[in-house]
């Protein structure tokens, strides 16, 4: 008995080179460039960043920085209001664009534009439109009411609302397109049968559309949350975080600290967002890596 047991161990496994077939060796060679990029520009920076954020003093400093608290609240508002509003509009418009009409097809071609063009010129365009003296919006308000319009970007809550508007303007086409793909996958027979039974518009939505789209809608909302957390442009290019640093979100705040050479604060402010981000990432990876 003892002989067979030790016999197992006695046979040395063949060396690694002999166990790998030629295609497998090629597989490793072809995978190596990506692994190199991943190590150099993801693993090392993330590890280094976490190491920089290791001092409890940074978190105490953040806690006492009123700009951080304001940015955290702004981020929450941005996520809760911005995403739900955007996804609800996208869900509604996906039904509109799913209609088979030539003019709606043409409209959908134009509708993609905000997503297809880079954000900086369009966001700067909006910024100028909102200029209290020279912007077209206040000029029109003056023309019709003979009164000065509001100073849109001077009041932090109005400015934040405008930034959310810009964010929605930019990303709405993408999500509408995705949800439309989901809608078009629903069998048409279901709707025809419902129509025969005399179902109303809202009943069709409640009993056919929503149940088939629910999972897609939730996935899109979560993915959109991750991307919105990383949206630097909408806030930075419209308000620059101002007035008085009151419209920062975590994405712009990290860069603000970085520009002020307070690297450990920059990293710490990002680490504070991790408890929210990691569950989202985990869920998305589970959904997508199947």
């Amino acid at each position: 008995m003892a002989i067979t047991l030790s016999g197992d161990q006695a046979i040395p496994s063949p060396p690694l080179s002999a166990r790998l077939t030629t295609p497998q060796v090629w597989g490793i060679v072809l995978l190596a460039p990506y692994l190199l990029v991943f190590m150099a520009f993801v693993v090392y920076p993330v590890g280094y960043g976490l190491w920089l954020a290791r001092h409890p003093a940074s978190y105490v400093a953040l806690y006492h920085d009123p700009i951080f608290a304001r940015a955290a609240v702004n981020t929450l508002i941005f996520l809760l209001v911005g995403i739900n509003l955007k996804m609800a509009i996208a869900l509604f418009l996906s039904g509109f664009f799913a209609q088979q009409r030539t003019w709606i097809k043409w409209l959908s071609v134009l509708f993609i534009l905000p997503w297809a063009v880079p954000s900086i010129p369009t966001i700067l365009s909006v910024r100028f439109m909102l200029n209290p003296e020279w912007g077209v919006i206040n000029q029109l308000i003056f023309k019709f009411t003979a009164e000065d319009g509001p100073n849109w970007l001077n009041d932090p809550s109005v400015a934040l609302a405008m930034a959310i508007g810009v964010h929605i303007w930019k990303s709405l086409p993408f999500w509408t397109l995705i949800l439309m793909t989901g809608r078009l996958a629903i069998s048409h027979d279901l709707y025809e049968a419902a129509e025969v039974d005399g179902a109303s518009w809202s009943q069709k939505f409640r009993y056919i559309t929503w149940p088939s789209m629910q999972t897609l809608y939730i996935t899109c909302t979560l993915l959109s949350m991750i991307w919105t957390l990383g949206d630097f442009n909408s806030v930075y290019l419209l308000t620059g975080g101002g007035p008085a640093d009151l419209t920062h979100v975590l994405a712009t705040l990290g860069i603000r600290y970085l520009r002020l050479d307070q690297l450990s604060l920059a990293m710490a402010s990002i680490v504070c967002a991790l408890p929210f981000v990691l569950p989202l990432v985990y869920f998305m990876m589970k959904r997508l890596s199947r």
Partner: protein
Amino acid sequence: MKLPTLREIGTEAKLLLIGIPVLIWTLVPIYHMFLFAISPKEDAFSGKLWPTHPTLNNFKIVFYQEHYFLRDFWIQFFNSVVIALSAGALTLLIATAAAFSISRLRVPGGRWVMNLALFTYFIPAAFLAVPMYRTMGNYGLLNNHWSLILAMVTIASPYAIWVLKQASDKLPVELDEAATMDGATTLQLFRLVYVPLMMPSLVAIGTYAILLAWNEYLYAFLLLSKDTEITLPVALGNFLAADDSPWELLMTTGFIYALPPAAIYYAFKRYMVGGLTAGAVKS
């Protein structure tokens, strides 16, 4: 021809009631940019909806670099082109090799690498920018085009690998087997069988990576700073620093900068919509 019924007219009216606000909402910022580009300075600031004297003079000023802010326009335009094309080519190379390795050669640990790549895809871009900036400094790459190219490759690759893997899993295994029976080596299999069959996805991914790099602002603004090294979006952002920014020139430059991605998008729409939306969220 059948006349439309009252009910059909009603439906059409309701659709128009949605369609018209959607059209206005979509186009206003873009139209406003275009309006500035074709307006002389006086008209641009007057709040008119169409200039009294439309002009192409702003384009002339930009193209001939006739303003202090625009003295490096062509260099910056060229920087944007070089960086976008390099990032696109490098992403394609790295991601295609990785997808082939994971999906066709079933390399040990391939699944694991896929998950790592997906994890990167989900790190918010502005969060990764902070440590990435310092890392590029440590590597001595700041103010070097390579820093932005490599950053864009890092950000584009995960999604590229993931989409390409989904697409290559759909190719039948028999193709590989038949080619191997005929004596094809692994590299021949890659070059002569795999790449030609993957062409539509490769076009979609290449376009995606080029547009990503062309449109990038945050990383470009952190990693590059010299006037002759920066890309167009950073130059546009720098306009804001001055109190007396020539907004009509800013908008003209912005319009020129926005044209290539819009044109590329519409030229490759067929591939983009198929390749990207199918990959973006698997329902």
